C-alpha cells in the first residue's frame, strides 16, 4: 500500500501534464511522453539490475529488440504459405491466429497481438536465461564485453534476416488491442488513450520494482552488491538471484519493446543498436544507479528531450558526454549532488546529527 501511495502523486503529475498540454494546445508533446514512458520502463528494469544487483548490461537494447521485432513480425508477416504446418494448426486451435483480407483482397493470416506479445516476452526471458547463466558468472570488464557482444549479435541478426526486414525493419505493424476499445496504436485519435496506457504500465512497473527492492529479495540483492561473499555466507543463492534479476530486467525491456513497436507501428534495426544500450546505461548512471526514482526521472527527461530533437545531430555525443561527466564528478548520480542533500536537510531539521549527502 505504501508503495502504491508513493506513486499516486506521480499519477497526479501524469494527469496534470495531460491537462496542461490540452489547455495550452500542445498535445503533440504527449506523443513523446508516451514513447519516453516505454523507454523508461526498460530503464527502471535495468536500474534494478545495475544499481541493486550490481551487474552491468550493455545489451539491453537487444532484449528490447527481441520483444519489439518478434511481436512485429508475428503480427505483421503473413503466414498463409505455412498454413498447413503443425505449429500453425496448434496456434489456430488455441485461437491465437487472426485471419483477414488485405487491401488487395488476398487472404492473410497473422498471430494475434496478445499471443505475439506473450511469445515475444517469453522468448526474451528464455534468451535471458540462456545467456544469463554463463554471462553472470563473469565480472567487471568481462561481463561488460560479453553483454556488448550479445547486443551486437542481436543487431546483426535484425540486419541480416529477411524475416525481420533487414535494414528497413518492419513497418505497418497493426494496433495491439488490449481490451475492446482500448488499443496501443499510433493513431492520432488514440493519442490521449495511449498516453495513459503507457504511463499506467510504467507506474505499475514502478510499483512492482519498489515492492521488490523493499523485500527479502531486494535486501539480498543490495547485500550482493555490498559484499558478494557475505551475502553468500548469509545463505543467499547469489548466482540465482543475479540471474532472476537479469531475466526480470530483460522482461521489462521486452514488454517495452512490444508496446512501443505497436505504438510506433514499426521497428527498425536502430532500436537494437549498441548505442541504444549505452544510452540506457547512461540514463541509469545519471539517475544514481541504485535509485529507481532517479532512473525514472532521468529516463523521462532525457528521452523526451532527445526525441524532441533538442540535442540535434549531437544526440549521441550528448549522451556520451553525460556519461563521462556523471562518472567523473557525480558517480552516485545527478540527484546526489546537491538537491537531495538540501532536501534531506530541509525535512530533517530537528535531527542535525545526520550525515551529509553521499558525496
Amino acid at each position, binding site marked *: 500500500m505504501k508503495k502504491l501511495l508513493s506513486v499516486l502523486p506521480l499519477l497526479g503529475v501524469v494527469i496534470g501534464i495531460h491537462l496542461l498540454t490540452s489547455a495550452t494546445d500542445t498535445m503533440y508533446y504527449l506523443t513523446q511522453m508516451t514513447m519516453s514512458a516505454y523507454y523508461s520502463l526498460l530503464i527502471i528494469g535495468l536500474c534494478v539490475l545495475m544499481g541493486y544487483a550490481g551487474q552491468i548490461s550493455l545489451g539491453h537494447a537487444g532484449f528490447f529488440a527481441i520483444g519489439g521485432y518478434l511481436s512485429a513480425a508475428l503480427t505483421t508477416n503473413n503466414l498463409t504459405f505455412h498454413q498447413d504446418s503443425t505449429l500453425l494448426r496448434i496456434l489456430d486451435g488455441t485461437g491465437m491466429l487472426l485471419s483477414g483480407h488485405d487491401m488487395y483482397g488476398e487472404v492473410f493470416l497473422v498471430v494475434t497481438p496478445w499471443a505475439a506479445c506473450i511469445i515475444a516476452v517469453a522468448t526474451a526471458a528464455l534468451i535471458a536465461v540462456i545467456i544469463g547463466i554463463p554471462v553472470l558468472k563473469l565480472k567487471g570488464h568481462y561481463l561488460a564485453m560479453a553483454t556488448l557482444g550479445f547486443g551486437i549479435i542481436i543487431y*546483426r541478426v535484425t540486419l541480416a534476416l529477411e524475416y525481420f526486414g533487414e535494414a528497413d525493419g518492419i513497418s505497418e505493424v497493426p494496433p495491439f488491442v488490449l481490451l475492446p476499445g482500448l488499443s496501443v496504436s499510433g493513431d492520432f485519435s488514440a493519442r490521449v488513450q495511449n498516453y495513459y496506457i503507457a504511463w499506467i504500465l510504467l507506474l505499475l512497473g514502478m510499483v512492482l520494482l519498489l515492492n521488490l527492492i523493499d523485500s527479502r529479495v531486494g535486501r539480498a540483492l543490495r547485500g550482493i552488491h555490498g559484499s558478494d561473499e557475505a551475502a553468500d555466507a548469509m545463505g543467499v543463492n547469489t548466482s540465482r538471484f543475479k540471474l532472476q534479476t537479469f531475466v526480470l530486467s530483460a522482461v521489462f525491456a521486452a514488454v517495452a519493446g512490444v508496446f512501443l513497436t505497436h505504438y510506433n507501428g514499426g521497428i527498425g534495426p536502430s532500436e537494437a543498436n549498441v548505442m541504444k544500450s549505452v544510452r540506457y546505461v547512461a540514463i541509469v548512471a545519471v539517475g544514481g544507479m541504485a535509485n529507481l526514482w532517479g532512473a525514472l526521472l532521468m529516463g523521462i527527461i532525457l528521452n523526451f528531450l532527445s526525441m524532441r530533437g533538442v540535442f540535434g545531430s549531437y544526440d549521441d555525443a550528448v549522451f556520451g558526454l553525460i556519461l563521462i561527466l556523471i562518472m567523473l564528478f557525480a558517480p552516485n548520480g545527478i540527484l546526489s549532488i546537491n538537491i537531495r542533500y538540501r532536501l534531506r536537510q530541509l525535512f530533517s531539521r530537528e535531527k542535525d546529527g545526520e550525515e551529509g549527502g553521499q558525496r
Partner: protein
Amino acid sequence: MTTELFIQYLMAGITYGSIYAIVAIGFNIIYNTTGIINFAQGEFVMFGGMIAISLLQYMPLPLAIALSVAITMLIGALIEICFIRWLKAPSVLRMIIITIGISIISREVAVHIWGESIRSLPYFIGNEISSIPVLGARISPQVLWVIAVSALMVVCLGIFFKTTSVGREMRACASNRKAATLCGINTQNMVTLSFVLSAGIGALAGCVMSPITYSQYDMGTGLAIKGFTVAILGGLGSSGGAVAAGLLLGIIEAFSVSVVPLAFQDAISIAILLIILFVRPQGLFGSKEAAGLSEF
C-alpha cells in the same frame, strides 16, 4: 580447395589477424599499467587512419602517417590526463563507463569532422590491382606492408620493454604499482605513457590497414570487440599470446567466409569471445591460478 585459394585465404587471415593482434596489444599495454580495459581502443585506430587521410592533402604519405601517429598519441595523452589521471581508486564499473563515454565522444567528433563517408589511404606501393605472386597466389603488396609493420611493432615493443629503462619502469609499474611508486618511479607518468604508446601503435595500424579495409568514423567498436576477443584468447596482458590469438582469429574468420554468410561475419568473433569467456576466461595460453588472482 586449391592451393592458390588456400594461400589467398591464409594471407587475408594473417593480415586481419595482425591488425587484431595490434589492437589487443594496445589493450594489454593499458591494462597492464592500470587494470583498465580501454573501450576506446578501437577509436585510436580510427583516428590514425582518418587523420592521415586528411593530412595527405598537404604532405607526402610517409609524413602524413608520421604526423597522424604523433597527433593520435597526443590524443591518447590528453584522454589520460583529462579523464583518468586524477581519479582516486575508481571502481571497475566507473572506468568501464568512462572509457565507453570516451569512445562515443571520439566517434561523434569524427563524424562531425569527417562525415559518415568511407575513406581510405592510397596503397603505399602500386594500387588496387598490383600484386605479388606468393606460392602461386596473387597477393596485394599492401598485405605485406600490414604484416611487416605489425611484426616490426611487436619486435620494437619487445625491445622497448626489455632493454630501455623506461620500458623496465613500465613493467615494474605493471607488476606492482605500489612497489614501483616506492622505488621512485613516477607511476602516473607511466600510465600516461601507456596511453600514448597504445594510441601510437593503434594509429599506425589504422594507417597501414586503411588502403585494404578502409576507414570510417564507426569502425572502432567492431575492432575493439575483436581486439578484446584476441586479448582474452591470448590471456589478458600477454603480448605473445595476443599475436598468436590474433592470427588464429584472423585465419578462422578468413576461412569461414566460404561457410558463414557475410552478414554474420562479426558474429563469429563475438561467438568465440563468448565461448572463451564462459569456458576459459584466463585465455588459451594463460594459467587459471593467475587469472584467479587478478582483480575483476
